[in-house]
């Protein structure tokens, strides 16, 4: 087990290193840099002032040197200074992390609860009207992008209720009700899409397990239907579901970018787009690394969860 964990950790480290190179190079391959943007939109171009700013921001150095400096700074816990806002990048990013984490957590809870429950019910009532209805529901989730659903929620609220959640972040300490109302709609928009895939995998995995001999045996011994489904079938059907949940987490980050914008939540995902557009390298590359790190960590956790969910799996054997 220990060897397996070490192997996975090593793979994660190599992945993160590869990611750091890719992020660093790709960001700089995009035409234009922050100095270009600041000066050319200003209209008046003084070449000496432009060169001075490039020197001040360090974008005039060779790309390899910039990369080494970045790694060194990150190792020392220094995320650099935002080019655009002229303040430490961490100061800009820090207050946004809890917002995105909370939204992601809520969305994944909604996706998992809704997806697994509807998947199980759909499998247990295969080919019934309920099954068709739930499959249609999941098809809707797969077809609708979360940002579009978010917009529809906003339009519905404005048109029918004449109300929308606060446009400014409300902390739970300040007003718990307003806080929850602010998060529940975007979490629903993102979570619904995630639930659709989980539902389909749960259904197909459950259908496979429900045909196994040990399920027939449990039923033959007179066990009631729902304990058979949840205690025996679902646990054995969980492996592919957990894998999909891991994937969904990665996809969810993409969904959050636009959903945070639509619901005006001051999260990391929304800010990342700004940082890329402004070529604010310190902020953009650190945010992408942070997101990459979260995805790698989730996938690692999923790998480790396999052993717990299915004791027959023995790592490194």
């Amino acid at each position, binding site marked *: 087990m220990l060897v397996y964990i070490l192997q996975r950790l090593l793979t994660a480290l190599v992945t993160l290193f590869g990611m750091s190179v890719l992020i660093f190079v790709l960001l700089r391959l995009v*035409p234009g840099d922050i100095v270009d943007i600041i000066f050319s939109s200003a209209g008046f171009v003084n070449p000496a002032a432009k060169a001075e*700013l490039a020197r001040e921001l360090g974008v005039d150095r060779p790309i390899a040197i910039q990369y080494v400096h970045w790694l060194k700074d990150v190792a020392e816990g220094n995320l650099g200074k935002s080019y655009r806002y002229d303040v430490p990048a961490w100061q800009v990013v820090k207050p946004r992390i809890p917002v995105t984490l909370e939204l992601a957590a809520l969305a994944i809870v909604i996706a998992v609860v809704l997806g697994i429950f509807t998947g199980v019910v759909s499998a247990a009532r295969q080919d019934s009207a309920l099954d068709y209805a739930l499959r249609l529901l999941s098809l809707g989730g797969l077809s609708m992008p979360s940002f579009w659903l978010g917009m529809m929620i906003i339009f519905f609220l404005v048109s029918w209720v004449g109300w929308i959640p606060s446009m400014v972040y409300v902390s739970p300490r300040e007003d718990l009700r307003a806080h929850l109302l602010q998060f529940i709609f975007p979490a629903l928009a993102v979570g619904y899409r995630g639930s659709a895939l989980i539902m389909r995998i749960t259904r197909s995995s459950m259908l496979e397990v429900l045909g196994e001999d040990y399920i027939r045996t449990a039923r033959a011994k007179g066990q009631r239907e729902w304990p058979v489904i949840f205690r025996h079938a679902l646990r054995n059907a969980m492996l592919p579901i957990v894998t999909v949940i891991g994937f969904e987490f990665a996809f969810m980050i993409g969904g959050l970018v636009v959903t945070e914008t639509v619901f*005006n939540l001051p999260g990391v995902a929304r800010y990342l787009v700004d940082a890329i557009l402004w070529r604010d390298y310190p902020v953009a590359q650190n945010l992408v690394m942070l997101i990459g790190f979260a995805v790698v960590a989730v996938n690692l956790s999923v790998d480790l969860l396999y052993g717990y969910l299915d004791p027959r799996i023995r790592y490194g054997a």
Partner: protein
Amino acid sequence: MCRRFHSLVFSALGSILFAATVFAAQTPKSGGILNATLIEAPPSFSIHEEVTISTVWPMMSCYNNLVLFDPLKKQESLETIIPELAEKWALQDGGKSLIFFLRKDVKWHDGQPFTSKDVKHTFDTVREAPGITGKLRVNPRQLWYENVESIDASTPDAVVFRLKRPQASLLLMLASGYSPIYPAHVPVSELRAKCLGTGPFKLKEYRQGELIEMVKNPDYFVKGRPYLDGIRYTIIKDRSTRYAALQAGRQDIPFIWEVARMPAEAAKRSVPKLTLTESSTNVNDHVLVNLTKPLFKDPKMRLAITLAIDRQGYVQAGRQGAAILGGVMLPRPYGVWGLPEAEQKKVPGFGDPAKQKAEAKKLLAELGYGPSKPLKFTVSTRAIPIYVDIAGYIIDQFRQVGIESTLEQVETGVWHAKMTRREFDVAVNATGIGPDDPDANLYENFKCGSARNYSAYCSEEMDRLIEQQSQVIEREKRLKLVNAIDKRLQLDGARMMLGWSKEYVAMWPYVKNVVPHQSIYNYGRMQEVWLDK
């Protein structure tokens, strides 16, 4: 008799009651927080270092100018300039000196007194005079003050701008939202992250990328102002969300540069109580041809290109009716320097579309282009929907005279750099002008060597005319000269003007005294704004 007497008494009482109601309704009320909207976080709070309305709009409430365009008058001109930190001003030495007499009762938000040294510090910093203590990181408006030779602040309550030559526009530029007075006792670099002004509002809180909260300055030098207790500028990036927030009453006023007509009208249809104001943004749409390329050096070629475009079609198809035709300067009724309509109609490109297209084809044939050898070039534009819409329309117009052009969409981040380096054939562009003033427009966009003169148009004679108009103090005489320059620039194909976009501001009727001007950069002080709630 008795009945008549009663009727007279009742009508008198009625009139008094009506007058009292009207008076009460129009008497400004103090208090309340205005929920205003921004579309992005300001890159910094330092107005002198920025070129975006996202900085000027919220930060204007923190500062004062020497003089300002009257926030309650729609049209900005020399006649609508009112005093702020300067109580009065006068031209001396035949227009070569401009003296301002300053208020003596003004304090900075930190309690320090305001003096003429602050004025000198501000404009010496902007014009990068020798011996300045702090330098601006980016200095976009240094050119505005190129004609200032020195600033004399030898007495605390007066300041003299000594000019190299008379310049009628200096006062207009000083009245712009882009010309606040900075405190001499605070390094300019610190003003990027905070605002310390003399203005009606102080900065209470800034949540990066989310909210700017201003609070009333209790020591403001104008007694009884501001009316509001504070302003919350909420940053809402998504346009649909911004309109939803306005309709739901979360926001009282939209972002002031919401130019699109359709969403504003849709908001008004959903919430009929909203008021809809049509205004101008002082932004013009135009087509640029790259004059550094041999293909476009021939005036016949430029004439053919401009004749190919139906301007009325641009208003309808490109801007969905939300634009007016005009030349280089903003036309009336929004602006004061534009060509009269009758004159503008005589400019090639603004006449009968069918006749002009036939003429364009004839000119192209004379130049050797036709169905067997079509003229080909790329049309570049910013990858922003409104730009792409207009570019799509222009490409179709070109196609109708046999020009084969392809669209190149350029990301905003590199657009200006690409244009400055003249890496384009033909471009569809929009340019916003700060104050509606010939100097602010002509020097930046048409003078030889200016970085923003994207087409690289250069004429010694035109440069001389631009200098000449700048020195004419008498308004009517200057207007004639500016009109002549406007016409000439269009005839030369320096920029193929299409028109000027209009904005549609939807807001709640209880918001009083937010009066959209013809330039978005000059009316964000908020001193006179009040809420009739």
